[in-house]
């Protein structure tokens, strides 16, 4: 084939030239500016209004989220949506929560999944908003179905980009009977009475607090309760990240010293315990508190917990200095992908989720409170902790961190103290990382 029909001689030199020029071309393509391709940051476009447009809702949409445990409930809701809109159907694309936190942005950005997607409150929402992933939902009439208190974290740049759907309490859940008995029916209102409660529980042969110190993601939930009243301001984590507050400040050192005081009340070798064994200890009645959050109630029920469950946040100050009774997180922020080819159907699905009937079905099916107003909670656990929706609670501080390394360093200091490190040493080490990250 040296002299082919076209008359172009193909010899080794030409092939090498061909390969070389192809490689050079690809190399040049690689040298185009990062982010120059699709997916650069951009402003969010306004969504079509399903009610106003009257356009036909059709197409298969992907719903990207991290709640594998909600799959069945969402499937039933999607089936109902399919009956209401026969030309549309909803497919769930579920990733484990840790993976979702790490890689959802890049996957959804591609546009092949996540016509409707969810975001964690905090760093992920900020990044997704910055990447222009969200469609502006500010003008949707059904926005008023949500409680304004809970959807504030779905706003960015003056626009309502998403709707936090779940309301969870990131504070210890407790075996109500055991704790009521040990505290004589009166929840501890200051640090000393909390420690006394732990003492009494321990003297009964119970583990006062089951704490998954081996898993940073779950271990960090206790941090919310520990800093909510100790810190001088509500945006304490934002200020640590900004350098306004330091881990070596008195209020944070006090928090670390209180962690040290809790050492005898955690299960043994707590820094190596994952969340599942903690759930097991709690569900079996061997532990009085599980220091994760209300999102674990469904899991401990599945493990056989038969007792009444309530919430209890340690108050780390004197009673008159306490500003908050607990912490919550409005998360699972529903958004519509700005690159979706089925935006009409996607917006209609989010609107469908916002109806009190559907939201109630989701809430009772998954044991999660929701941000939609007028929902009737029929699940006994949700009814039991519903009064917390009215109490003075602080949005969970740990989600104020936008830099995940700084969050890990600050929360890691608490875990290190439980493991035996001195509070001062742990604080210094954490602050060193914060300083390094800030100087980058």
């Amino acid at each position, binding site marked *: 084939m040296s002299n082919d029909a076209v008359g172009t001689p193909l010899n080794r030199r030409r092939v090498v030239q061909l390969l070389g020029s192809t490689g050079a071309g690809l190399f040049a393509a690689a040298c185009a500016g990062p*982010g120059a391709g699709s997916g650069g940051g951009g402003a969010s476009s306004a969504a079509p209004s399903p009610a106003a447009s009257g356009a036909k809702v059709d197409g298969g949409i992907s719903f990207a989220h991290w709640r594998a445990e909600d799959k069945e409930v969402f499937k039933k809701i999607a089936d109902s949506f399919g009956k209401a809109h026969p030309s549309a159907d909803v497919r769930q694309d579920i990733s484990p929560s840790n993976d979702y936190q790490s890689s959802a*942005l890049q996957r959804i950005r591609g546009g092949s999944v996540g016509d409707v997607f969810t975001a964690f409150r905090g760093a992920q929402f900020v990044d997704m908003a910055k990447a222009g992933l969200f469609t502006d939902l500010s003008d949707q009439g059904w926005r008023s179905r949500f409680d304004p208190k809970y959807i504030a974290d779905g706003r960015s740049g003056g626009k309502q980009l998403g709707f936090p759907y779940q309301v969870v309490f990131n504070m210890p859940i407790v075996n109500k009977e055991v704790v009521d008995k040990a505290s004589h029916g009166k929840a501890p209102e200051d640090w000393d009475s909390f420690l006394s409660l732990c003492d009494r529980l321990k003297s009964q042969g119970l583990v006062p607090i089951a704490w998954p110190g*081996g898993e940073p993601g779950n271990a960090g939930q206790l941090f919310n309760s520990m800093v909510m009243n100790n810190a001088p301001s509500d945006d304490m984590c934002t200020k640590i990240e900004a350098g306004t507050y330091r881990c070596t400040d008195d209020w944070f050192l006090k928090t670390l010293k209180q962690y040290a005081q809790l050492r005898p009340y955690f299960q*043994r070798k707590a820094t190596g315990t994952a969340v599942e064994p903690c759930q*097991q200890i709690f569900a079996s009645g061997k532990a009085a508190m599980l220091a994760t959050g209300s999102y674990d109630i469904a899991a401990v029920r599945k493990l056989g917990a038969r007792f009444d469950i309530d919430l209890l946040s340690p108050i780390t100050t004197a009673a008159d200095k306490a500003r908050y009774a607990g912490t919550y997180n409005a998360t699972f922020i529903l958004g519509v992908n700005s690159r979706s080819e089925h935006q009409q159907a996607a917006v209609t699905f989010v609107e469908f989720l916002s109806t009190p009937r559907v939201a109630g079905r989701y809430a009772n099916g998954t044991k999660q409170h929701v941000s939609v107003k007028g929902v009737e909670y029929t699940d006994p656990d949700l009814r039991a902790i519903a009064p917390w929706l009215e109490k003075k609670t602080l949005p969970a501080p740990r989600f104020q961190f936008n830099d995940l390394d700084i969050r890990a360093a600050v929360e890691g200091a608490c875990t290190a103290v439980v*493991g035996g490190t001195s509070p001062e040493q742990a604080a210094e080490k954490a602050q060193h990382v914060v300083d390094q990250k800030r*100087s*980058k």
Partner: protein
Amino acid sequence: MTTHMLSKRISADTPRATHSPARHPRPGVRPRRGATRTHPALWLFPLPAVALYIVFFALPTAQAFQYAVTDWDGLSAAFNSVGLGNFGTMATNDDLFHNATTNSLKFLLVVVVLQTGLSLLLALLLQRNSRATSALRALYFLPAILSSVSVAFVWKFMYDPNFGLINQALDTVGLHGLQSAFLGNESAAIYWVALTQVWAHTGQLMVIYIAGLQQIPRELYESADLDGAGRWQRFRFVTWPMIAPTTAIVIAYTTIQSFKAFDLILGLGGNPPKGSLDILSTRIYATFTNSQFGYAAAESIVFMLIIALVSVLQRRAVKLTQRV
């Protein structure tokens, strides 16, 4: 007879346990005029593979070098060039990266030494073909067919301080003092993960060693026997030099595998893992997650260089031990 004398005798009398490959023209050397010439059309055949290589390997690698000198966050269209600033920060002002490097090296050392030694030992014990050895080989190989995530979940429960098998066994026999928080122990956590890695992959490398051992000509052992070599001397002067290529492959494979023990770490330690379990691959992933693409690309390049350096040093070390 001293070992030295025996060594000399084996050297003199025994066929040399070295490789004497048949002479083939070296790649890249132009064949003599008149020899069979490659038909030019054949040069088209590697094109698809070369294209795939360029698109999926060369191009991303080139991009990594490009990103490494920027502060790109992975989201914005705009970015700034920072020159070698990312590398400078990494060298002088990043404890998280230094900690991950230290953990990676500790992990590597334990895994390479234990995994290579154990797989060689098992291979020596099980190299003969019999029903019993076949059954044992299958048993030891079994963990290799499990996914790292499955291995992580199994060992997560083994290491649990309260319900875990290890602490419960120690409790049963009264050795409470040896109980540990395992993955919760800041200074030892990385070694426990290394042991899990060894458990999971020793069987796989044992199979490679068995294949290598079965290639050794029997005549070499017979000759060594005639020379009066004992077990250790047979191993030292026949087996060890003859499995040099296998050892080099096993060590190189183990090294790269150790550096990339990503899913096992995340399975055991969560995502992101604690500082005590953070290795270079998880650190790079965490940096990407933290929307610091430029910095993560710089970390990836340093990671690549560390793997290359360690691999070269190991190959030299293996060669040296087999020359002595």
